[in-house]
């Protein structure tokens, strides 16, 4: 692989964290070298070693987020987990409440089901204030409402929804509560039992520091044991259990897992969870806040040339646009200086509308535990040069 000579300042951690911790990298190598068998297919020791790795990750997830390891269903990403959670739990005629900060990984499957006449949905205004949010949800409730979907942490700003309160509302009204924790898992405190979550959808490659190709849906008590059968199937095929039965098993995780699992990715997810546990969430949150504050305060020096979209205060994400440079061009000019950020609409159309970003979208800077204060200083220096015309256009 060709490595660029220029230094890399990686500030796109909301898309995927980079670089990965040393332990995650060594785990990937170890698994590929020693244990890359097919779990749940054979009885030989390489298959069983792979099965142990997969089980260890299930256990790690259940210990970290609460719940039962048998209710961990591995997926290739959070998008896969969200599609799986939505499409296996909803029934024809159901009504769903989704927030106005959802990612397209929720908006698109929900819209597709509605387009096919299977479900209907309403959009509620995401809020950080519990009472206002519960009032909003209550007002949108219909007799056939079956599910509330909540983006825990926006992917374009630091708006964090109070999931414990939404979970309480769902319990009280007998609704399925599905949480998209793509930006929060590994950073914010989540306990599926305390928070009343029925389906928690998580990517492994973001703040849990695993490799791309890892993710999971963690199902709550509602779906334990034979209750797994109330879920429809999402993918059918071999999983090494009840092979003579033409139907998928009725219990989790086997009801929703078919085909060979991504053992190396799953193993790195487990190593990533260990890494996050070792650091402690508070340390990660505090560091990201410090980086945000440094960036935000630094940008004040050229506030006449850019707009910062503040929502939710300091945190892991800072969204801004330059007054005279389209967002994609600005991102490309930063990349020329070795700085990786993401421009455009971040697959979050309704959230962008809410923040009233320009027609060309905005630039997202997203921090991670691997970033340093020096990274921020280089970003600010580069922005200063670009915004003041000391950097040639593309």
């Amino acid at each position, binding site marked *: 692989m060709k490595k660029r000579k220029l230094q890399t300042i990686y500030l796109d951690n909301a898309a995927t964290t980079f670089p990965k911790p040393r332990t995650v990298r060594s785990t990937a190598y170890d698994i590929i070298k020693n244990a890359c068998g097919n779990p749940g297919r054979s009885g030989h020791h390489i298959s069983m070693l792979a099965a*142990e790795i997969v089980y260890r990750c299930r256990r790690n997830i259940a210990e970290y987020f609460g719940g039962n390891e048998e209710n961990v269903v591995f997926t290739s990403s959070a998008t896969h987990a969200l599609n799986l959670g939505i499409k296996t739990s909803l029934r024809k005629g159901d009504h769903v409440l989704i927030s106005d900060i959802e990612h397209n990984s929720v908006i698109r499957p929900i819209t597709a089901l509605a387009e096919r006449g299977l479900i209907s949905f309403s959009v509620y205004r995401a809020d950080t204030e519990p009472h206002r949010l519960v009032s909003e949800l209550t007002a949108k409730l219909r007799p056939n409402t079956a599910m509330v979907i909540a983006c825990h942490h926006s992917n374009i700003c630091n708006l964090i929804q109070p999931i414990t309160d939404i979970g309480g509302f769902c319990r009280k009204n007998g609704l399925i509560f599905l949480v998209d924790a793509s930006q929060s898992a590994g950073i914010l405190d989540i306990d599926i039992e305390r928070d009343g979550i029925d389906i928690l959808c998580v990517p492994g490659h973001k703040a849990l520091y695993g490799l791309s190709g890892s993710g999971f849906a963690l199902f709550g008590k509602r779906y334990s*044991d034979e209750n797994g059968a109330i879920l429809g199937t999402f993918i059918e095929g071999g999983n090494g259990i*009840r092979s003579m039965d033409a139907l998928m098993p009725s219990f989790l995780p086997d009801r929703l897992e078919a085909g060979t699992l991504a053992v190396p990715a799953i193993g790195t997810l487990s190593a990533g969870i260990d890494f996050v546990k070792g650091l402690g969430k508070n340390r990660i949150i505090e560091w990201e806040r410090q980086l945000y504050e440094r960036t935000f305060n630094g940008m004040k020096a050229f506030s006449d040339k850019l707009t910062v979209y503040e929502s939710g205060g300091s945190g892991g994400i800072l969204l801004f646009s330059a007054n005279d440079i389209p967002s994609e061009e600005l991102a490309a000019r930063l990349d020329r200086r070795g700085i990786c950020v993401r421009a455009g609409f971040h697959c979050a159309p309704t959230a962008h509308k809410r923040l009233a970003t320009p027609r060309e979208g905005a630039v997202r800077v997203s921090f991670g535990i691997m970033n340093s204060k020096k990274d921020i200083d280089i970003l600010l220096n580069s922005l200063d040069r670009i915004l003041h015309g000391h950097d040639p256009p593309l």
Partner: protein
Amino acid sequence: MNNNKNKPNTQSNTHRAVENEQIIPLRSLTQAIKAQKLLRVASVNARVIKPSSKYAEEGCGYGVAVSGLEYDKAIGVLKSNGIAPLNVNRRELPRDR
């Protein structure tokens, strides 16, 4: 990862049956590994196995093998942890001839 260290705990097939060892069939591989961990905590030595199809529901499955002497204790441990063996009748593993 210590390859050799992990081998004895996971190595298993029907041809390695120990005398008087008995099989407890379980519904999934996940549950079989979970059962093995629970039994280990209760000081019951157990191996995860993929027994021949006649010991599994609908063709393929997994379970744990325990010493015949510890079979009743193992069943008790699993049931108290909410794990229901597929068939609690004693099933001896076939042995090498």
